[in-house]
C-alpha cells in the first residue's frame, strides 16, 4: 500500500516538474517555431502549431538586412571580455575573503550584494554621462567594463562560497608537507578550485550574453551585441513577428548550445553551498 502511494507521489511530482519545465521553455519553443513560419502564419488566429509551411525565408531576410556576424562578434567580445576581466578581480577578492577573513568580511560581502538591489535605471543617467565624458559610448571596451561591474558581486559571491568549501586543513597539510605559498596555490588550491571557477565563468558568460538593459542603452551601431540585433527587429512601424523570431533564435542559439553542454556544471554552480 505504502509502496503504491510513493509511486503515485513520484508520478505526480514528475508530472508537475514537466509541466513547469514546459511552461518555462514554451516561449523559447514558440519563438523557434515562429521563426520558420511566414509572417501571415506567425500572426494567424487560431495559432498554427506544427503544420505550417516550414520556411527559411526569415533567416535569409534577416541575414540580408543586417550583419549578424558583427553582432555575434560584439557579443562574444563583450561577454567573454567582461567575464575574463571580472575573474581577474573576483578571484583574488573571493580568495582573500575566504582564506584570510577579517572582522568586516561578512559586511563587505553583503554590501557588494546590496548594489544588485539598486534598480539599474537609477544609475543609467550618471553612467551615461560618464560614458560621454570618457568617450566610451558605443564602444566594446565601455560595455565590457559596465557588464563586468554589474556581474562582479555575483562572481565574488559564487567564488567565495566555492573557496569556503575547500577545507583549511588541506592547505595546512600542504604547508606541513613542505609546500611554500607558490606550490600551495599551484598544486593544491587551484586544482580544487577549478570546478568552482569553471561554473562561475559559465554563468557569467550567460548573464553577460543576455544582458539587455545596458547593452541597449549604451550602444548605437558599432558596439551593438546580439541583444541590440533582436531589438532592431521590433520596429515601431508594423511588427514582423516571424523575422523577429528568426533574429531571436539566431541570438540565443549560441548561448543555448553552450548552456546545454554545460548544464551539469551550471546546476552545480547555482546550487553549490546551498546544501552542504
Amino acid at each position, binding site marked *: 500500500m505504502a509502496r503504491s502511494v510513493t509511486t503515485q507521489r513520484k508520478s505526480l511530482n514528475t508530472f508537475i516538474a514537466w509541466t513547469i519545465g514546459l511552461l518555462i521553455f514554451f516561449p523559447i519553443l514558440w519563438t523557434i517555431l515562429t521563426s520558420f513560419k511566414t509572417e501571415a502564419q506567425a500572426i494567424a488566429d487560431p495559432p498554427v502549431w506544427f503544420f505550417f509551411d516550414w520556411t527559411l525565408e526569415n533567416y535569409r531576410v534577416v541575414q540580408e538586412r543586417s550583419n549578424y556576424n558583427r553582432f555575434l562578434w560584439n557579443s562574444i567580445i563583450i561577454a567573454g571580455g567582461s567575464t575574463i576581466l571580472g575573474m581577474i578581480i573576483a578571484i583574488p577578492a573571493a580568495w582573500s575573503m575566504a582564506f584570510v577573513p577579517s572582522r568586516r568580511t561578512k559586511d563587505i560581502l553583503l554590501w557588494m550584494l546590496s548594489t544588485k538591489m539598486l534598480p539599474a535605471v537609477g544609475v543609467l543617467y550618471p553612467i551615461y554621462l560618464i560614458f560621454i565624458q570618457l568617450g566610451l559610448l558605443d564602444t566594446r571596451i565601455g560595455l565590457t567594463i559596465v557588464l563586468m561591474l554589474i556581474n562582479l558581486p555575483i562572481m565574488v559571491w559564487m567564488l567565495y562560497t566555492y573557496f569556503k568549501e575547500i577545507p583549511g586543513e588541506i592547505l*595546512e*597539510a*600542504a604547508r*606541513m608537507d613542505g*609546500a*611554500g605559498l607558490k606550490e600551495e596555490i599551484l598544486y593544491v588550491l587551484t586544482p*580544487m578550485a577549478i570546478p568552482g571557477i569553471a561554473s562561475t565563468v559559465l554563468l557569467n558568460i550567460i548573464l553577460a550574453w543576455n544582458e539587455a538593459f545596458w547593452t541597449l542603452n549604451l550602444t548605437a551601431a558599432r558596439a551593438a551585441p546580439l541583444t541590440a540585433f533582436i531589438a532592431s527587429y521590433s520596429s515601431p512601424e508594423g511588427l514582423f513577428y516571424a523575422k523577429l523570431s528568426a533574429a531571436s533564435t539566431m541570438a540565443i542559439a549560441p548561448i543555448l548550445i553552450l548552456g546545454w553542454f554545460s548544464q551539469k556544471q551550471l546546476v552545480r554552480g547555482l546550487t553549490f553551498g546551498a546544501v552542504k
Partner: protein
Amino acid sequence: MGQIVLEQVTKSFGDVTVIPPLDLIIEDGEFTVFVGPSGCGKSTLLRLIAGLEDVTSGEIRIDGTPSATTPPAKRGLAMVFQSYALYPHMTVRKNIAFPLRMAGLDRAEQDRRVEQAAAVLNLTDYLDRRPGQLSGGQRQRVAIGRAIVREPAAFLFDEPLSNLDAALRVGMRLEISELHNRLKTTMIYVTHDQVEAMTMADKIVVLRAGHIEQVGSPLELYKAPRNLFVAGFIGSPRMNLIGGAEAAKHNATTIGIRPEHISISAEEGAWSGVVGVSEHLGSDTFFHVQDTGLAETVTVRADGEVNFRHGDRIYLTPREERLHRFDEQGLRIA
C-alpha cells in the same frame, strides 16, 4: 633527531589567553600524548609546535634549533589531521609522494619510498585510487603514509582516530603504537580520550585551560594523580571522589578511591549502599551504588561472576593503601 623544547610559550587570540606561559620538554623518540577535555588548548599547543599558529611569546626549539618563527614547511615535522586532509584530486600514490615532490627528490627515489610506505601500511593495492574511493581507515593510513615517507624529526597527530568507528579505532591504535616501536621517532599525539592516552603514551601531558596539570608516565598518573582534576580525568570508570566526614577521618578534604580498589560483599564492609545500575562487560561488572551517604553514586568494579541485582543492599570496603587524599586546594597530600 627530534627533541622538542617549549620555553615560556604563550598564545593569545586577541584578549583571550589560550596558553599561559608553559614549559615542556619532549625527549627524542618519546611518544607523548596531550590529553584534556575539549577546549583545554591541547590542539593549539600542537599547532604551535607545527608552526600552523604563531606563538605570542616564548621559544620552541626543535633539535636545539630555535624554531618559533620558522614556517611549518621548514620545521621538518609531519602532521596527521583529524579530517585526514588528503588531497582529493590526487591518487593515493601522489598524495603520499607529495612531501617528497616538494622536497625535490627524483622520481625513482619518490617511487621507491612510496612503495615502501604503502607496503608497511597495506596500501599497495590502493595506490591508484583517489581518497574518495577509500574507507575511513584506509584514508587515515594514507595520511600516515604521507607523514612517514619524508622521515620527519617528529610526528604530530591531531586526534587522528576520532572519525573512525570503535573497532577500527582499537586497530589503528595498535598500528600507530607498532609504527612508533619500529621507527623510534618522536611522536606527539593529541586526544581527548584518556584510554588512547593510557594505552599509547610513554609520557602523558594532562592539560586544562592551557595549564599543564601533570606530566608523567601513564602509571604515574594513575597511581599518584597530583590533583583532583587529574584524579578524575585519568582512569575509566572515574575515580570515586568523596568529601565530608568520611574524608575528614583521613585528615583530608577529599578522598579518592578507584572502582577497582573497592571490595564488595553481601554481608559486611566499611560502607553500605543499594545497587543502582549495573554494567555487565562479561569479564567485569561495574555497580553504581547509591544511598551510601558518601557521594551521589559510588562506582565499584567486581568480577564478572559477581551477581547483585538492582535494589540489593551491599557492603563496600576500600583498600586503605590505594586511597588518594587531597587537601582543600584539591592538591594531593603525600
